[in-house]
């Protein structure tokens, strides 16, 4: 047998380390993609909830809501679909957190960190895989929306830009997910993060305009990063909307870019610090 006793990479220069950080990241992404290909039902499980929500809102509650100022139910589909897209991206951080907790709980992080691979790949690979996963989620949801009769009023390029805004939100929330995933003790606790995610997703403009909510709740909802992204993409899709009373809603596009940057600026360092604390 010509088995090696020592891992063959010996390049400890910066360039060598960057190269391996990328190669190793891709190996982790590959592992995650194999997961998705082998278990396509993952999508059904994870998209089931948002889809049921939107069907309920469009066909049950929506008919009673006047979101466009043109009477109850009018334009609700156009209002709710962008909300559904945004909510799915927002809830995505739970998938990230759950996956991180899982590899921690199962001892994968330990094995990875005892290996010559770049340990950053554990996290970067997760992030890249989650973005790919989110893009597929989004494609499925858009497909469903089109079948139900939703159309974007914006140009093709602008519509594509709106999808990028959605992925930007998802990207920022990956760092939140990694941070939370490293904090919680086990996958059971990670499942309970839904208690955090649910108000975060719902107290927003996703299903109802903040103007229709009681004062303080409306303000919280309007300033929710989820609302900013939802508002920005509604503008792009030219969804009908009542005139908003909140300053931030008037600047939804800028907020949809600034919020994810703020979230990243806070949670990326926190996640890195938490990751380093594993070696304490």
């Amino acid at each position, binding site marked *: *047998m010509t*088995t*090696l*006793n*020592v*891992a*063959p*990479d010996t390049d*400890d220069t910066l360039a060598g380390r960057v190269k*391996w950080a990328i*190669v*190793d990241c891709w*190996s982790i992404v*590959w*592992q995650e993609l*194999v*997961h998705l290909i*082998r*278990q396509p039902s993952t999508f059904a499980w994870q998209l089931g909830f948002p889809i049921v929500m939107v069907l309920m809102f469009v066909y049950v509650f929506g008919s009673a809501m006047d979101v466009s100022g043109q009477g109850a139910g009018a334009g609700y589909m156009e209002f709710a679909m962008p909300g559904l897209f945004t909510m799915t991206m927002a809830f995505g951080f739970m998938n990230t957190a759950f996956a991180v907790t899982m590899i921690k*709980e*199962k*001892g*994968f992080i*330990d*094995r*990875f*960190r*005892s*290996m*010559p*691979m770049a340990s950053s*790949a554990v996290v970067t690979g997760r992030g890249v895989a989650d973005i790919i996963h989110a893009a597929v989620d989004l494609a499925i949801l858009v497909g469903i929306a089109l079948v139900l009769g939703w159309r974007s009023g914006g140009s093709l390029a602008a519509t594509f830009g709106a999808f990028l805004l959605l992925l930007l939100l998802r990207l920022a929330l990956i760092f939140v997910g990694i941070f939370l995933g490293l904090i919680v003790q086990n996958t059971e606790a990670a499942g309970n993060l839904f208690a955090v995610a649910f108000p975060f997703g719902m107290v927003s403009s996703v299903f109802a305009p903040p103007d229709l909510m009681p004062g303080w709740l409306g303000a919280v909802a309007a300033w929710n990063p989820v609302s900013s992204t939802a508002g920005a993409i509604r503008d792009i899709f030219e969804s009908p909307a009542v005139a908003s009373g909140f300053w931030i809603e008037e600047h939804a596009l800028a907020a949809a870019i600034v919020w994810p940057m703020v979230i990243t600026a806070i949670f990326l360092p926190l996640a890195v610090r938490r990751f380093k604390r*594993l*070696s*304490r």
Partner: protein
Amino acid sequence: MPTSDYAVRAIGLQKRYKETRALDGFDLAVPYGMVYGLLGPNGAGKTTAVRILTTLIRLDGGTAEVAGYDVTRKPRMVRRRIGLTGQQTAVDDAISARQNLVLFGRLFHIGQAAARKRADELLEQFSLADAANKTPKKFSGGMRRRLDLASSMILAPRVLFLDEPTTGLDPAGRREVWQAIRELARHGTTVLLTTHYLDEADKLCDRIGVIDHGKNVVEDTPDGLKRRIGNERLEIVAAESDDLPAIAELANRAASEGTEATVDEARQAVTVPIADGVQALTDVATELRNKGVTAADLGLRRPTLDEAFLQLTGHATDDEETSAV
């Protein structure tokens, strides 16, 4: 640069978690080619030692070298030369057994083609070839642990760390894993394993180090250790407490070399380490009858880890879980 003849050399390891001294001046020296067993009860510091030696956590004091490199200053050099199978089984249940091994091969930087080739070799070596394309979800405990072991053997590493490799396995699974570890040792891999089980350390290891409260208790060969704690013991429970001295005297004659009987007044029991169980049992039974002493109970017992600790350290272990060895 490598400076040591030892696969693992640790001096005065310290690790504190707030109030807990997980390691408190722990020393370890494992020569190349040896299977070394770290034996100790729950919370003794076994996992902490393994985690320091595999570069997962920083030490608070002392020095440690693995495969010739300092774990603090040259962690990358260490990581290129070791394998780790941790306390939990790190197997990806959603991808096939072969894909698990290929993934780890790539992450050990041996290249895609070599990773595939090595995966097939390992599947063969660990008797998993038939299950290569199945996902480990449906594997038995022993198979999963073997796949886990194989994942840490992508390189035939200089030093392999196994943290409780058989805990939670049924007897068949344990035997499978033992077989696999012996096979690795035969090919020259240095193995450092931790265990709660005396018999496991006895069957697998060339040397056994006993650890408790983060400190070394004793280190010896399995035979030496057994001599110290007695291989088997004979227990005689007296019917009348007045008979205890006579029974103790008679038990001492059956004692294996260098040991003596211990008397438990409360239970009216005399326990003595013996060399040849059946012989001692018949001898003692005959003598009891000759002297007209009646015993309430007479039997052979294997020492539990608790008793071994009592014998070695003069105090019992703190937990109940390990007493059923």
